């Protein structure tokens, strides 16, 4: 053995254990090197796998009949279930190891929910103070053929999330799932849950087929505007969508699907003058990246100037409304020519409207360094995008509260 090299500096790999902190050790190194402990970082879009807690969540199903159906369904693995699922192989055939290793992660034996332990662990590792937590399989619930199942599951999940997670851990916040296929249930959800601890707004999953400008939603938008709580549209795909069904590979349906539904909803939102009707309603577009907005602004402006009679509610160009909305950053496109990204930032007024997001633990997550390391941003702008804008949007205390591993 070479005496100059201590043996503890050599380690083996293990594929039968997992720790969020160890898995993200290099993220912690980045966080320390960039002094993230000195300023607020808010993750506007992160996830857990609520399916791992179905046994608990299903107990919150209000209807005894449906509750029994959910519980019984969950006990029959491998067969059709109440919630169904989505075709997709997000873990790239096992290449994203945390997806299959995470079940080995050990947490302290306490009353604290496992999701709180694992979530705050990765938050600290990345340097995140507050994380807006969203579900994962439920991102596809808007395409469920039974509206009453969407409503039942949404109410159960939200009640469970508020009681078991948000009430227990102030660093985890959320914008709650709206069962948008039932407009009355959507309105009632905001009424019933809008004042719960940690509820910073409400979220519509984008893959769905009811138009956002339908009159049935106006009273919900008004209520949200009065409460000062944002509405967000969280992107996802639906491979069964007639257009996306033409795509034969997951990479394709993911790349287009996550933009497509938000482009449709945004176009309806703007062209029907929703921002004119609810000028104080804060709107957030989540997980579509940035290029879609850059493109759509130009596209809609171009048509608008020739066809103003098609959208008489508008008093300004479509892009001017879009520049007043908020955009989550992930998955942030990274062109080699950074001037292209800089132009995108300028187009969406990133310094006030862009809010950083990780999407962790999903396969294409981003670290804060995607913003922090951009050469064209000044320090104030970096800090605004990483946390300041989100604090303004969600009403958060800007004082950092995280503990980055290794920070003294």
């Amino acid at each position, binding site marked *: *053995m*070479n005496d*100059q*090299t201590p*043996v503890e*500096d*050599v*380690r*083996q*790999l293990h*594929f039968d254990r997992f720790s969020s902190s160890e*898995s993200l*050790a*290099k*993220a912690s*190194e*980045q966080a320390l090197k960039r002094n993230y402990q000195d300023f607020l970082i808010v993750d506007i879009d992160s996830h857990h796998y609520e399916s791992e807690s179905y046994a608990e969540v299903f107990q919150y199903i209000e209807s005894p009949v449906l509750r029994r159906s959910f519980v019984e369904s969950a006990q029959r693995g491998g067969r059709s279930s109440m919630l169904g699922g989505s075709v997709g192989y997000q873990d*790239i*055939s*096992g*290449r*994203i*190891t*945390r997806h299959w290793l995470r079940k080995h992660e050990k947490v302290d034996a306490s009353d604290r929910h496992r999701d709180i332990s694992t979530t705050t662990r990765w938050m600290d590792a990345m340097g995140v103070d507050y994380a807006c937590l969203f579900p994962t399989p439920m991102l596809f619930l808007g395409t469920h053929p039974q509206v009453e199942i969407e409503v039942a599951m949404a109410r159960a999940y939200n009640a469970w999330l508020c009681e078991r997670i948000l009430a227990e851990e102030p660093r985890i916040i959320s914008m709650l799932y709206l069962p948008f296929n039932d407009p009355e249930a959507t309105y009632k959800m905001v009424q019933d849950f809008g004042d719960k601890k940690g509820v910073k707004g409400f979220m519509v999953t984008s893959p769905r087929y009811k138009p956002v400008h339908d009159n049935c939603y106006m009273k919900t938008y008004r209520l949200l505007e009065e409460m000062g709580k944002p509405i967000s549209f969280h992107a996802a795909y639906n491979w069964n969508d007639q257009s996306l069904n033409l795509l034969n590979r997951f990479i394709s349906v993911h790349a287009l699907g996550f933009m497509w539904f938000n482009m449709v909803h945004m176009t309806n939102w703007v062209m029907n003058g929703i921002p004119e009707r609810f000028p104080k309603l804060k709107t957030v577009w989540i997980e579509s990246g940035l290029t879609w907005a850059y493109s759509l602004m130009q596209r809609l402006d171009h048509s608008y100037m020739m066809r103003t009679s098609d959208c008489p509610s508008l008093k300004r160009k479509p892009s001017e409304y879009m520049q007043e909305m908020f955009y989550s950053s992930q998955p942030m496109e990274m062109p080699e020519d950074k001037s292209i990204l800089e132009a995108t930032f300028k187009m969406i007024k990133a310094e006030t409207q862009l809010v950083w997001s990780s999407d962790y633990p999903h*396969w*294409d*997550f*981003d*670290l804060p*360094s*995607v913003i922090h390391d951009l050469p064209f941003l000044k320090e104030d702008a970096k800090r605004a995008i990483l946390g300041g804008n989100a604090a303004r949007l969600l009403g958060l205390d800007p004082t950092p509260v995280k503990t980055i591993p290794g920070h003294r």
Partner: protein
Amino acid sequence: MQEYFVAKKIDFGEGDRRIVRAGGSEVGVFHHGGAYYAYANTCVHSGGPACEGIMIPKVLDVIAEDRSYQGQVFSDEMHFVCPWHGYEYDLKTGECAGDRRLKLRKYQVVDRDDSIFVIA
């Protein structure tokens, strides 16, 4: 530059890997196909632990003479995959599969007597 001990060969079997802190950097050392390879354990994408994921052969589309698609196969080119996001690297060259202009830093491996060392 100096030599850093990686492992006794008897403890470093075919298919094994070690992560070594050498010269202030982390290096992933692979033993595969009777050869040893060593690369910087920092992904060119977002700084993830590039050498700590699974190993899997490069996937190929099978295109027939008539240019029709006939499915997919694994090739002989072995890759290792950054576990954070799936960036794949050619084990023999350290080149990134998605853009061969991007490479992990390669380190020299020394196979001497009964031990493996890396120079960093």
